[in-house]
C-alpha cells in the first residue's frame, strides 16, 4: 500500500520530448515507473524513449488508459496543459515546472477541481512511492521502502528528510513534494488523511515553510483527525521579514505565516516539532519507538 500512486499507475508525460521532459522521463522509467507514453503537439505517431508520442492528452488517454500525467511544459503553457489533462479525464496531474504565473494557476486549479482532477505542484519535486513509482525529479535511490509518509513544500528538504529517515533504519511509504507557490494543488489538508488511511504508513513527516497558512490548517486537521505520530519542521525561523526566499510562497509580511506561529500551532496539536531539519531522523525514530 501507499498513497496516490503505485507500480500499476499508468503515467503519461506532457512535454515528453523536451530537454527536461526527456531527461526526467528516462530517470522515471529506469526507476520502474509505468510510463505508457507522452504528449507533444505535432509529434504524434513518433516513438520517444521507447514509448508512443501523442498530439493530445485525449489521444494518449484513449490509447493507453493513463490516469496520471507528469507535466514538464514551459511555464507559460502550464495552465493550458493542466486544463487539457483535466478535460481528457486524467485523475492526477503532477506539475514539475517552475515559474508558472499565479493567475494561470488560479484558473487551472479551478478547472481541474471542477473535473475532479487532483493536482500536485507546480514548482515541486513530484511524488514517489518508494521502490514502485517515481513521478518527478527526486533522486530515487535515497527513498528506501518503509513506513514513514512524507509531505514537504521544499524539494531538497524532502530529500534531506527522507535520507535521515532511511539512515535511522526506517523507510518511506510515499513522499509528496507539494511545492511552495501561492497556489498549489494537494496540500497537507488532503494528504494527511490519505496517510492516516494507508495501512503501510505508521508515522508522518511534515515539512513546511514560512508564508501562507497551510500549516496552520494542517495543525487543526491533525488535532481532529490524525492518530498517527507526526514530526514537523518549518523552514525560515531566521528569515528576515518582507523578503522573498526563493519560493514565491516563502515570504513573510506582517505577522501572518511566521515559522513561530506555525510551530506553536503544530505543537499544540500534538505534533513533534523540531527546530532544525538535522533533527528530523532522530525525531522519527523517537515517535516510532513510542508506538
Amino acid at each position, binding site marked *: 500500500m501507499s498513497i496516490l500512486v503505485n507500480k500499476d499507475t499508468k503515467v503519461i508525460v506532457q512535454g515528453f520530448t523536451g530537454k527536461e521532459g526527456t*531527461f526526467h522521463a528516462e530517470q522515471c522509467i529506469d526507476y520502474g515507473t509505468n510510463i505508457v507514453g507522452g504528449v507533444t503537439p505535432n509529434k504524434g505517431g513518433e516513438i520517444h524513449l521507447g514509448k508512443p508520442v501523442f498530439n493530445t492528452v485525449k489521444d494518449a488517454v484513449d490509447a493507453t488508459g493513463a490516469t496520471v500525467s507528469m507535466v514538464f511544459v514551459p511555464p507559460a503553457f502550464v495552465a493550458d496543459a493542466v486544463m487539457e489533462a483535466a478535460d481528457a479525464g486524467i485523475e492526477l496531474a503532477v506539475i514539475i515546472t517552475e515559474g508558472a504565473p499565479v493567475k494561470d494557476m*488560479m484558473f487551472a*486549479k479551478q478547472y481541474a477541481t471542477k473535473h475532479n482532477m487532483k493536482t500536485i505542484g507546480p514548482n515541486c519535486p513530484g511524488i514517489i512511492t518508494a521502490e514502485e513509482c517515481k513521478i518527478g525529479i527526486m*533522486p530515487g535511490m535515497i527513498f528506501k521502502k518503509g513506513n514513514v509518509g512524507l509531505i514537504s513544500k521544499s524539494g*531538497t528538504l524532502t530529500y534531506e528528510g527522507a535520507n535521515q529517515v532511511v539512515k535511522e533504519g526506517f523507510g518511506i511509504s510515499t513522499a509528496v513534494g507539494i511545492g*511552495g507557490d*501561492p497556489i498549489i494543488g494537494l496540500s497537507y489538508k488532503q494528504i494527511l488523511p490519505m496517510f492516516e488511511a494507508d495501512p503501510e504508513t505508521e508515522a508522518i513527516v511534515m515539512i513546511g*515553510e514560512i508564508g501562507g497558512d497551510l500549516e496552520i490548517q494542517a495543525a487543526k486537521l491533525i488535532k481532529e483527525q490524525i492518530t498517527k505520530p507526526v514530526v514537523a519542521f518549518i523552514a525560515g525561523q531566521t528569515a528576515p521579514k518582507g523578503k522573498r526566499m526563493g519560493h514565491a510562497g516563502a515570504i513573510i509580511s506582517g505577522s501572518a505565516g511566521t515559522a513561530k506561529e506555525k510551530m506553536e500551532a503544530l505543537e499544540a496539536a500534538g505534533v513533534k516539532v523540531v527546530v532544525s531539519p538535522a533533527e528530523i531522523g532522530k525525531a522519527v525514530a523517537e515517535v516510532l519507538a513510542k508506538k
Partner: protein
Amino acid sequence: MNIHEYQAKEIFAEYGVPTPKGKIANSVEEAVENAKELGGPVWVVKAQIHAGGRGLGGGVKLAKSLDEVKQYAQEILGMTLVTHQTGSEGKLVQKVYIEDGADIKDELYLSVVLDRAQEMPIIMASTEGGMDIETVAEKTPEKIIKVTIDPSIGFQGFHGRELVFGLGITDKNEQRKMIDFASKLYKLYMDKDAEMIEINPLVKTGSGDFIALDGKMGFDDSALGRHPELEAMRDISEEDPDEREAAQYGLSYIALDGEIGCMVNGAGLAMGTMDTINYMGGTPANFLDVGGSANAETVAKGFEIILKNPNVKAIFVNIFGGIVRCDRIANGILEATKLVDVHVPVIVRLDGTNAPEAAEILKNANIANVIPATDLADGAAKAVAAAKGEL
C-alpha cells in the same frame, strides 16, 4: 517586481481610476517647472522610493508656494529616507513627484490581493484610511471589509454593494462612483498580473469624488514575460546590486547580518540551513540558493558574492545532490577555489547521489581551508566553530 507611486498612477490613469494630477521630476528645476504647469495653489512634493511610510520619514511635504516647492524638492532629492519598510540603512531618493493638493474630506483604504486560502483575489477596504493597515487589522479587525471575487465570474454588482454598504456609503451617487472605482481596480489587477495593489489613502473629496492619493503596486515576477510594458518600469537602483548580480547567474541571494556565509541548493534547505546555524549558536550572513544545477561556475560566483561581505568568517556549502551527482559538485568546488581567492574556512557537506566519491575527492585534494562534513548537523556545528575561530 514593485514600481514607484508615479508609475502606479500612470497605470491607474490608463484604467480610468481617478488620481490627482501630477508630474515626475529628477531635479529641483524640473520640480518647480512641474509645479508651475500644474498651477497650484497647493502642491504635494513626494519622494519616490519603493517603500511605505514616506510621510512619517519626512519624504512627503505640502507646499503652499513655488518657493516652498523648491525648498522641499531640495530637501527631499538626494536624502536618504528611512521608514519602517526601508530598514535602518534607508533608501536614496532620486525622484520627486509633484502633485496637485487634494481637497480631502475623508480618508479610506482599498487594496486588491490574492487570498491564498481561498485561491482567489480579494478586495480589502476600510474607513480607516491613512493609517498603517496592519495596525488596523490587529486592533480593530471589524473595520476591515473583505470581498472575495471569484475570477470565473469577475467583479459583479453584488461585490460592489457589499463593499459600499460595508464602508457605510449611503449617498447613491457616491456608491456608484466607489463601485466603478473598485471594479476598475479589479480589472487592472487581473489584466496586469498584479500581486498586490494598495491605495492608502483613497480620499473622498469635498465634491464627493473618490481619488487615489497614493498607489502601491507589485507584480508577479513569473508573469513579467507577457508584460513588457511593466518590465520597462523596473527601477534597478531600487534593487540590491548583489541580489541582482546573483540573479543573473541563476542564484537567489539575500544578504543578512551574520558571520557564516551559506551556499545551499533549494530554497527550503537554504532556510533550513540558516535555521540550523542559528540553533547551533551561529549567525547566517546570507541566504543563497544555487538552484538545481550547481556547477563550478555558479559555485565560484556564489563564493565571490558571499565574500564581498566583510563580515563573513566561514562558509558552509550544504548541497543535497539529487539528479546532480555529488562528485561533480565536489570537483566544481575545487575548481571554484582556484577561480576565487577563498580566504575563510569552507565547510562542505555533500550528500545524496555519489556522496562517498565526493568525500574522497575533497579528501585527496587536501586543501587546508576546505573542511568536509558528514551531514547537516556536523556541517553546521563545524561552520559555527570555524566562525568563532575554534576549528
